[in-house]
């Protein structure tokens, strides 16, 4: 009852000073709206990176030749020839944390079907590839181990390749295409995966047995890459360790020597990209928080003026029976109401801004519930924190002095 009355009094004071209240709220509104929008952008990019990478297979582990290329001025991994088929066989035999593994050789080239041609890439792999990359087939079937062994000229193609070399909608399976003038029989079409976050078309691909690509297209005996998938996502880091150990032994590296290959799990890739976007998010939120703080100081400032201006009113309220606690609560509720109302408007504005960013700038966004909850909590705390001192001052006034104040 009592609190309800005080709430009524505080609401009235706010309504009577609409313009001033709105201006006071502005700081909070802008602060909250920017925190919500910034977090939405941060979360959105993080989520899209994560989903892209997990679509590539979140258990996936890749082994590339050459040392970690994060250092300055190294040659591209593809030029190094330290990864060979024996490495693949050794890993396949010894690594028990992996459930699928394939050697990878790849090359760019022209896909030709009659008068239609299209520049694409060919990946030479084994049948495990599908499960490692988590990709299914639209039609046809995967080549077999026997076809790998015999280096058969069979291939599976992605949707983009289908669209470009079979523009009239013919059924590609069973047709002959040529890749860099080597004829391949199309035995399947890969499921459509679309673009990933980095803008790569994941359907612009031809896959064939690695033996075929190695011998007939590239004429090499080394591998560009080994792809594997760990038993589970949790086992991925341990699997990376295991593969590293096997390869170091295989390559007879001394303890003092660096790895001549690089093993990475998708998890690492995710965290690499996430940490960049996380840093950005933290930075943006920090800037937004400063405006929230300034908003809070604005509230304190106005509450101070308000207490001063309404000294006589406070005196009157005390004379007719308001206790110090009533006055304290009245001003505190007023401050909290201002900050929370500002918070609500800020959240709405932030959500609006998020929709705008998503629609017109085409940035991925994702509004996290926690960001709304945190904003509200911060608003309430801001109101209490910055409202407390002026309210405390009001409640401690001497009624006689306050009544005589002009």
């Amino acid at each position: 009852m009592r609190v309800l009355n005080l709430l009524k009094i505080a609401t009235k004071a706010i309504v009577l000073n609409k313009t001033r209240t709105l201006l006071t709220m502005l700081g909070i509104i802008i602060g909250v709206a920017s925190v919500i929008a910034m977090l939405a952008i941060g979360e959105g990019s993080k989520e899209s990176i994560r989903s892209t990478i997990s679509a590539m297979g979140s258990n996936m582990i890749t082994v590339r030749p050459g040392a970690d290329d994060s250092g300055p001025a190294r040659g591209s991994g593809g030029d190094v020839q330290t990864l060979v088929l024996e490495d693949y066989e050794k890993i396949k035999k010894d690594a028990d944390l992996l459930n699928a593994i394939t050697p990878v050789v790849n090359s760019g080239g022209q896909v030709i079907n009659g008068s239609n041609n299209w520049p694409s890439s060919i990946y030479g792999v084994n049948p495990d590839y599908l499960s490692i990359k988590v990709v299914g087939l639209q039609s046809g079937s995967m080549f077999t181990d026997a076809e790998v062994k015999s280096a058969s000229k069979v291939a599976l193609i992605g949707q983009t390749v289908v669209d470009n070399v079979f523009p009239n909608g013919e059924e590609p399976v069973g047709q002959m295409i040529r890749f860099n003038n080597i004829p391949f029989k199309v035995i399947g079409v890969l499921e459509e995966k679309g673009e990933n976050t980095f803008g790569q078309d994941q359907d612009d691909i031809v896959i064939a047995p690695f033996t075929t690509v190695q011998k007939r297209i590239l004429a090499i005996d080394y591998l560009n890459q080994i792809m594997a998938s760990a038993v589970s996502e949790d086992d991925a880091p341990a699997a990376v360790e295991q593969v590293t150990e096997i390869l170091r032994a295989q390559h007879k590296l001394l303890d003092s020597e660096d790895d001549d290959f690089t093993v990475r799990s998708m998890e690492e890739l995710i965290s690499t990209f996430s940490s960049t976007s996380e840093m950005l998010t933290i930075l943006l939120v920090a800037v937004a928080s400063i405006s929230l703080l300034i908003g809070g100081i604005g509230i304190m400032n106005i509450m101070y003026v308000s207490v001063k201006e309404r000294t006589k009113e406070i005196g009157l309220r005390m004379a007719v029976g308001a206790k110090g606690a009533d006055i304290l609560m009245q001003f505190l509720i007023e401050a909290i109401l201002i900050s929370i109302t500002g918070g609500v408007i800020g959240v709405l504005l932030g959500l609006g801004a998020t929709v705008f960013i998503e629609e017109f700038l085409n940035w991925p966004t994702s509004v996290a519930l926690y960001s709304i909850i945190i904003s509200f909590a911060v608003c309430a705390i801001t109101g209490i924190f910055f409202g407390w001192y002026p309210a405390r001052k009001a409640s401690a006034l001497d009624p006689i002095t306050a009544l005589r104040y002009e």
Partner: protein
Amino acid sequence: MSKEIIKIQDLKREFTMGTETVHALKGISFSIQEGEFVTIMGSSGSGKSTMLNILGCLDQPTSGLYEIDGVSVKDLNRNQLATIRNEKIGFIFQSYNLLARTSAIENVELPLLYNSKITSEERRERAIKALEMVGLGERLHHTPSQLSGGQQQRVAIARSLVNNPVMILADEATGNLDTRTSYEIMSLFQELNRKGITITFVTHEPDIATFSSRTVVLKDGEIMQDYKNHNIQSAAEELAKLPKQDH
């Protein structure tokens, strides 16, 4: 006479100004019975304001006894004083002290907002009744800026009545009003007094005292005179004697 509303015995109030002690009230004793209309008179520096603050439970005596409606005020804390003010005293000020941009009825409701025993329906009901008593039943939703000075003071009087106080305490309640309006207000006070409401009126205007039943004159912190008024003037009659105004 009947019940004793106010009992004051050897009441002293001292203020410390730096190293000096100012004796604002130097041992005052008097009491007010239920139904009296007392004016407390005195020039500035007489201790009149100090007396008013103590009577209104806004301040406490340094020594001596002050009882209002049987409650000794001396040892009460800030909150208990607030409750006494809320339940036993109705304040009226020289400058009305109404809340701006707030309707008459909400102004009158104000004291009841701080009394959690009263429901919002009862609050509204009592506020309307109080405004009707002061003749403003038609102006419940007017804000102070839409009311004349006399009407504003009537709202303030209604506010002082709304909590059914044991005593109304008026501080120069006619000080801001012209003669005609102040007579109107005084006649309202007399009317309320006739209904049995105890009124204590602090003023420095001698003609106000002629409308009351008793006058206490303070000088230099002591009671100089305390006399019953046997020839009470009727404010309504005085009002009728004033030259007619063009309306």
